[in-house]
């Protein structure tokens, strides 16, 4: 991932969390849950599901702390765990393959996005939410979160060509939605 904010406090030491137990892990959670929830809310367009997946992500982070080698920042690593957790769940749930088309669903999502991220742009949030799930995921990872094409291809288990075609489709659909 090329973009990360905010900088991580020095106290966010996964080794300390590992030594000192779950209570110490709360500090890691508090430093990162907002970014995880934002990504998962946009990926799922479903607040309840995003909350569950945020919890699943941090349980998995705890369980796999031993595999964190510090090659990336802890925030980048947690973010990748969140993406993988969400993708696994979304693949298992074919309902999420459908885009959010029901007017009520879109309105509910837009209301939650505005509450959770008061500075966001609702026209953009609605355009993203209305995308097909696969195209939405690629757009979020590349254009919102700043992942490189190659990283997205690896995460999704697809070719770079597929990432490009999904991204271009997503942008085209989003531009059309924004201009309507």
């Amino acid at each position, binding site marked *: 991932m090329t973009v990360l904010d905010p900088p991580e406090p020095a106290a966010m030491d996964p080794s300390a969390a590992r030594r000192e137990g779950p209570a110490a892990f709360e500090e890691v959670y508090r430093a990162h849950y907002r970014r995880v929830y934002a990504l998962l809310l946009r990926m799922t367009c479903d607040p309840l599901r995003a909350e569950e997946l945020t919890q699943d992500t941090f349980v998995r982070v705890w369980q796999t702390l031993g*595999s964190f080698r510090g090659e990336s920042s802890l925030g980048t690593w947690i973010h990748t765990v969140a993406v993988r957790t969400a993708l696994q769940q979304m693949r298992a749930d074919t309902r999420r393959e459908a885009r959010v088309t029901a007017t009520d669903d879109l309105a509910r999502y837009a209301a939650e996005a505005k509450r959770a991220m008061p500075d966001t742009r609702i026209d953009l949030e609605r355009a993203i939410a209305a995308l097909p799930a696969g195209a939405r995921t690629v757009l979020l990872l590349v254009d919102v979160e700043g992942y490189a094409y190659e990283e997205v291809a690896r995460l999704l288990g697809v070719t770079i060509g597929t990432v490009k075609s999904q991204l271009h489709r997503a942008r085209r659909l989003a531009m059309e939605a924004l201009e309507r």
Partner: protein
Amino acid sequence: MTTHPAEAVLHEHADGRLDAADADAVERHLAACAPCRERVERIRTLRARLAALPRAAEPRRDLWAGVATRLDEAPAPPEPV
């Protein structure tokens, strides 16, 4: 470049992913083609707006208690190998 570049090429140009020779060819085309210039500008505008979206969101409730309960039931993570 006398024919219009494919849409995919315009996206890759907007992303800065073309090599120098291809980027030069697209730039020469854009200098002479207002519709393609406008397409690239629309892509760049969308990218900039998406990159400026907030990337932190507050859940409706505190989720830590639910995480902590599950951590108490999980084994301690192993040391790095």
